[in-house]
């Protein structure tokens, strides 16, 4: 079981969260067809740290950006997404 430190709710079991996708798979609306195909379908898929979009579905329901190691499941960052105040 992974423990995810939600910035709003504190450390919670990962079953409270829904995994959405890796951050490299988020499609901006104003993109070319070639870029859209690449972003939709191709993944870096590293064995190592990866930035991912999760949602605290059974908690505060906030979208969160996790930095997680795909081999050890170590989580080094959990931040609200989009970052507050930047619009990004």
């Amino acid at each position, binding site marked *: 079981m992974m423990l995810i430190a939600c910035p709003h709710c504190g450390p919670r079991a990962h079953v409270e969260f829904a995994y959405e996708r890796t951050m490299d798979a988020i499609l901006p609306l104003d993109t070319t067809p070639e870029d859209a195909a690449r972003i939709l*379908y191709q993944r870096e898929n590293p064995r190592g740290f990866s930035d991912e979009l999760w949602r605290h579905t059974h908690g505060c329901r906030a979208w969160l950006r996790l930095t997680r190691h*795909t*081999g050890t499941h170590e989580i080094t960052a959990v931040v609200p997404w989009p970052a507050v105040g930047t619009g990004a």
Partner: protein
Amino acid sequence: MTRFSVFSLAKNALSGHRLWERTWRDAAPRDAYDVVIVGGGGHGLATAYYLAKEHGVRSVAVVEKGWIGGGNAGRNTTIIRSNYELEGNAAFYEWSMKLWEGLEQDLNYNAMVSQRGVLNLCHSDAQRDAYARRGNAMRMNGVDAELLDKEGVRRLAPFLDFDQARFPIQGGMYQPRGGTARHDAVVWGYARGASDRGVDIIQNCEVTGFLRGADGRITGVETTRGVIAAGRVGVAVAGNSSRVAAMVGLRLPIESHVLQAFVSEALKPVLPGVITFGAGHFYVSQSDKGGLVFGGDIDGYNSYASRGNLPVVEDVCEGGMAIMPMIGRARLLRSWGGICDMTMDGSPIIDRAPVDGLYLNAGWCYGGFKATPASGWCFAHLIATDQPHETATRYRLDRFATGHLIDEKGQGAQPNLH
């Protein structure tokens, strides 16, 4: 290589089983081969076997970072079936089933192929309609399929919980020719057949990079046991395809996810064949040793850790208890995890890479074991002739960009849902 037969068995029995030959040669790498296959799992070894046997390519090496069959070939739930609906999949998996049916005679090796039937349960009218549609598509493609009503299912598996309040069993789809095979024996059988035809099987030999010519063409591989030159390189490393492809700067339509599998203590025979739960994700069969071999969903998030998490263990066991409460008192013997190449449409890739001299066999999601013979057959055909085999023309790498997806489950580009 001595052929296995009743006579060789008698001879070795009378000589105290001291004279059996080694099943395959544990080779050291030579400097160069016509073809190097990266990955000594079922698919890689089958590819080497068919390259040597069907195409006369004898200068072949299979390089494996660990030991042969130590990856997903040894971690699956051994189910074979060809109950696919879509064009592009149907012919391929049926070709695989036909190869399974002749495999033991072809390899002269007992792979314990057992066509004990695969039963997919349905629990709603809509699901029955979907199975009717799938079964009809299968029969149109020459594959066996039967739609069973509740009584038909009861005749096959009277021990199921038919009146479960939440997911009552309303019927099922049955493929009598489906079943199971002994996964390790498949690996060893292909290794023996390939080794016997001159293929070098090189273990503890991890690929760390690729050699490229001035024109960019792949000319060999760098490994932990030295440099090996190759005319062509085939990659069959499902689970780690992205990592190997990254060595030549390729990004694949693949995510790596962990799939868990389980086996119970050995029981007297209780299950006639393979049974799958239609309202959750649970599939189970009983090995000849008596263990209930079962599995369910992938863990849901990208993972290269060959072990799974507890919530999925609970989920899988709940699925099992929902359809067959009788297994509730069987004790779990072991559970383990394997890393799956999950593609964006749930279907595999057998294609030339966009780098000359490199060929990809990847993206088997969690259906790679049943595909082993046809995967090897079609990959060997592609490497030897530079043309896709007629049953594998749709497994192109560029199908995602062109929109020719083969999405059996209709989930879209969300690999953790396939």
